[in-house]
């Protein structure tokens, strides 16, 4: 496919570090959009703040780079006001689960038709490698020089519990799976989360003696456990690994569609409003 058709190439080169996983996700998103066949004019890509949130700037859609953690709130406004737009949100672990955690669970609860691609690289990359809500216990960060002591969010589990109707996890190693999951997410009429485990060699890799991008990709390959296999494994066996696959794929009433029913019932443009 022709990536350049979807890219604003005059804004290249990208700001991401060598070995960063975000470019892989960007390409997967574009392939998925191409496959689904959206017109560029009908796509609105929204992001917050962070490395992953720079994706929209490079894409030739209606793009909205908002405030830290708030992408889903802006996206909700766009979708509710103009439901014809295909709204895609690109976010990171810090953006979506720390500062934007409340918006994340509420957007999932509403089952509003947004496709959220959450790039989880276990760290605040743009600010220089501080510990995030997904930095695993024991792993080092600039603000966890002796290793993080906190529990992490299971991001996909959070979305599932909050009411998302499509939830999947993959990694930047599994590029074909990643593209297919995003495609499914775009097709789902409701809140879709695709969590992509990604490498940040600069900010997460270096302090954890894993700075080689290839080595980090191989780590993803070796530590990914497909859900079918994980179901037969004990928590001890799954320790230190991450489960991949589609966790939720179900139909449920969608927020804007349900609201349209109220408008259809109440709105009578030519006559007086219904009583």
């Amino acid at each position: 496919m022709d990536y350049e058709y979807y890219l604003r190439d005059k804004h290249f080169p990208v700001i991401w570090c060598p070995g960063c996983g975000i470019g892989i996700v960007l390409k997967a998103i574009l392939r998925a959009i191409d496959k689904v066949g959206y017109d560029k004019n009908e796509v609105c890509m929204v992001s917050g703040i962070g490395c992953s949130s720079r994706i929209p700037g490079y894409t030739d859609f209606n793009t909205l780079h908002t405030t830290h953690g708030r992408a889903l709130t802006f996206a909700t406004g766009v979708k509710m006001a103009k439901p014809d737009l295909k709204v895609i949100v690109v976010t990171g672990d810090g953006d979506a689960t720390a500062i934007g955690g409340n918006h994340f669970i509420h957007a999932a609860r509403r089952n509003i038709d947004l496709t959220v691609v959450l790039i989880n690289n276990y760290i605040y990359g743009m600010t220089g490698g501080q510990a995030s809500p997904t930095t695993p216990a024991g792993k080092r960060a600039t603000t966890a020089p002796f290793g993080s002591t906190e529990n992490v969010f299971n991001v996909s589990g959070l979305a599932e519990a909050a009411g998302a109707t499509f939830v999947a996890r993959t990694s930047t190693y599994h590029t074909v799976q990643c593209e297919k999951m995003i495609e499914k997410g775009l097709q789902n009429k409701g809140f879709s989360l695709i969590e992509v485990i990604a490498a940040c060699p600069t900010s997460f890799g270096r302090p954890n003696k894993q700075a080689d991008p290839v080595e980090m990709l191989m780590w993803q390959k070796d530590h990914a456990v497909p859900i079918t296999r994980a179901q037969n494994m004990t928590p001890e066996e799954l320790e230190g690994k991450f489960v991949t696959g589609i966790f939720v794929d179900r139909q449920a009433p969608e927020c804007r569609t349900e609201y349209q029913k109220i408008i259809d019932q109440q709105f009578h443009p030519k006559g007086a409003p219904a009583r």
Partner: protein
Amino acid sequence: MTTRAEGRQSHLMPSTQTTKAVRLLTGNEACALAAIACGMRFYAGYPITPSSEIAEYLSRLLPQHGGVYIGMEDEIASMGAIIGASLTGVKSMTATSGPGFSLMQENIGFASMAEVPCVVVNVMRGGPSTGLPTLPAQGDVMQARWGTHGDHPIIALTPYSVRETYDLTIRAFNLSEKYRVPVILLLDETIGHVNEKVEIPDISEYEVVNRTPPMCPPEEYLPYQHTESGVPPMANFGSGYRYHVTGLSHDETGFQTNDSAEIEKLLLRLHRKIEIARDDIVEADAYRMDDAEIGIVAYGSSARASREAIRVAREEGFRVGMLRPKTLWPFIDKEIQSYAGQVRTWIVPEMNLGQIAHEVECALHGQGSVHRVNRVDGCLIEPPQILAKIREVC
């Protein structure tokens, strides 16, 4: 059995159909009705006293007019949602009170920077913090000006009656669309909740302004063009003009820049567009100022008390008048200055500790004395308090 909500509905419905309806309305109702009348079709909000009725009315009225109401998880989200909605071309608003207004500041800054039209209603109650639900105050006037970080343009309007709340709500949308800025409508609790008999003209009697769309083809569109007026034409998302919106410092194309010349150009234009249009934006009402030697500067419910104090003081022989800002930001400095030769004594009654009195002092440059009448106990300033100050300073 009629529920409370249904009762409200029947009370509300005629307004959108009849011309020159004479109605008994609260400020909050007038605000909701005016917003609908001038084409507002998206509301996002979070409940907070004393503004909640606006959300309640609009949750009923909006779908009846083909619009959308959504209750968000907090005021940060409400502000984000109305900006998103406005970018698609829909006039959008939210309403809140002090604590929620604090949370909105982050994205009010975004709306200023990205030049997204929207209206934020703040029905003021006592602060700081949770403060006084639900007693009146005017403590957020400086927050309306400087609440979000960085130098930013803002417009704030402040009505003193129910009818004026209707008019200024429409004006808030007009200014917001015309100049691509967030506009703050500052009510105090009393104005929001007081019932008044009002005559509401048909919307055809009002000027209703909509944002200017680009005339050029999409490939030539500069979303943040440095136009002569300072206001760039605005394309709606989904209209074929694909462009980038960011809260980062950006150039004319909308993309982030670290070029200091471009950054300065942007910041200066954001302010210039308001400065150029200052006289179009700023409105003050001069009441019995023709022969006044003492001038009162008051807004919101304090202005109502001032009118009564002026009536009584005039009977006692004091030549008192009032210069009442309907636009609070930008401030009515020129209007105050124009009376500097005639009025040497100014009184500023306000339900805070002198936030606007300080602005009056700045406007006068020492040409006259400024006397404060303040109240921060949740009670309205009453006419005798102002009258006592008039007698004291003469």
